[in-house]
């Protein structure tokens, strides 16, 4: 009888010592952060803005629709992406070799245009841009946008003869839209 008591007590102790079934202490889960970076913008200057020979005292304009004379850039990037177009325009062309002698140049609000592929090219572009302000357009179905610019030089009567030049810069950037 006494042995049975001992056995029962030991059994109880074993159960106590065995403890509870192990609980899961912690749980982890992993998710992914996902993003797709679209292609960077690139811009290429195709044609310089060329006034050719000008006569002192007589202004000369080049229209944006004149192939080979109007300035031209091609912008390439993600299809349909919105971008800003920001021109940095000179106020004069400088005599090459003598940067103190300048010839005034001006650009009016209708002196630039663009085609996103939906227009008819340089002669019938998609729209007009004001090169004096910041423009916003979208790349076309081909992921491209072509921009043209014209302008007017105003040589003085006493303008020194020679070759004149200045940088016309077009900066583009995605807006994120």
């Amino acid at each position, binding site marked *: *009888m*006494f042995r*049975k*008591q001992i056995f*029962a*007590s030991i*059994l*109880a102790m074993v*159960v*106590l010592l065995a*403890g*509870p*079934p*192990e*609980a*899961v*202490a*912690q*749980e*982890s*889960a*992993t*998710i*992914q*952060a*996902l*993003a*797709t*970076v*679209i*292609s*960077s*913008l690139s811009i290429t200057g195709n044609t310089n803005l060329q006034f050719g020979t000008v006569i002192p005292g007589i202004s000369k304009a080049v229209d944006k629709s004149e192939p080979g004379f109007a300035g031209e850039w091609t912008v390439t990037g*993600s299809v349909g*992406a919105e971008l800003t177009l920001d021109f940095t325009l000179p106020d004069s062309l400088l005599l090459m070799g003598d940067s103190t002698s300048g010839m005034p140049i001006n650009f009016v609000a209708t002196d630039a245009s663009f085609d996103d592929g939906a227009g008819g090219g340089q002669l019938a572009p998609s729209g007009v841009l004001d090169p004096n302000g910041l423009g916003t357009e979208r790349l076309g179905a081909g992921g491209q946008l072509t921009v043209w610019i014209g302008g007017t030089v105003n040589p003085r009567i006493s303008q020194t003869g020679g070759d004149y030049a200045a940088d016309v810069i077009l900066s583009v*950037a*995605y*807006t*994120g839209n």
Partner: protein
Amino acid sequence: MCERRILCSLVCGVIVLLFSVSTPAQTITINNNLLFGNIYPGIPKSVTKYTAGAASEFLVTGTAGNEISIDFTLPTYMNQGGFNMQMIFTENDCSFDTRATPSQSAPEYDNQDPWSTLYGRLGSAGLTIWLGGTIVPKLYQKSGAYSASIVLTVAYTGS
């Protein structure tokens, strides 16, 4: 007398067994990855924790009323073929809700710091956690599909 002792010992064992049933383990269900969508080079993009379908969402279930600790292992970069893109998680990018009907737009516990251990008590419907973040692509970020892992670890605190 002796039989009573045996019976008493057995009852003790049974009682111990009854009270040693473990607390059910907590489980995590992933409802949503953290989705940034299309990214433009040079333009940072944020996904807020309030944005349904874009913010990451986890559902933790277990024993209602038990407190759990919540720890994130957060990446600092997303990767794509050897290229990386910086990620930022601020001290306000996390929220959670223990109510029966959790609200992502107006969570019970808003502006939580995912870099710190958080504590919450499981509700009848568990505990839902949301996480937002920001990525900062470089101006000439290599195009492509970027990814990073975010690990959530939860554990009962015993409280």
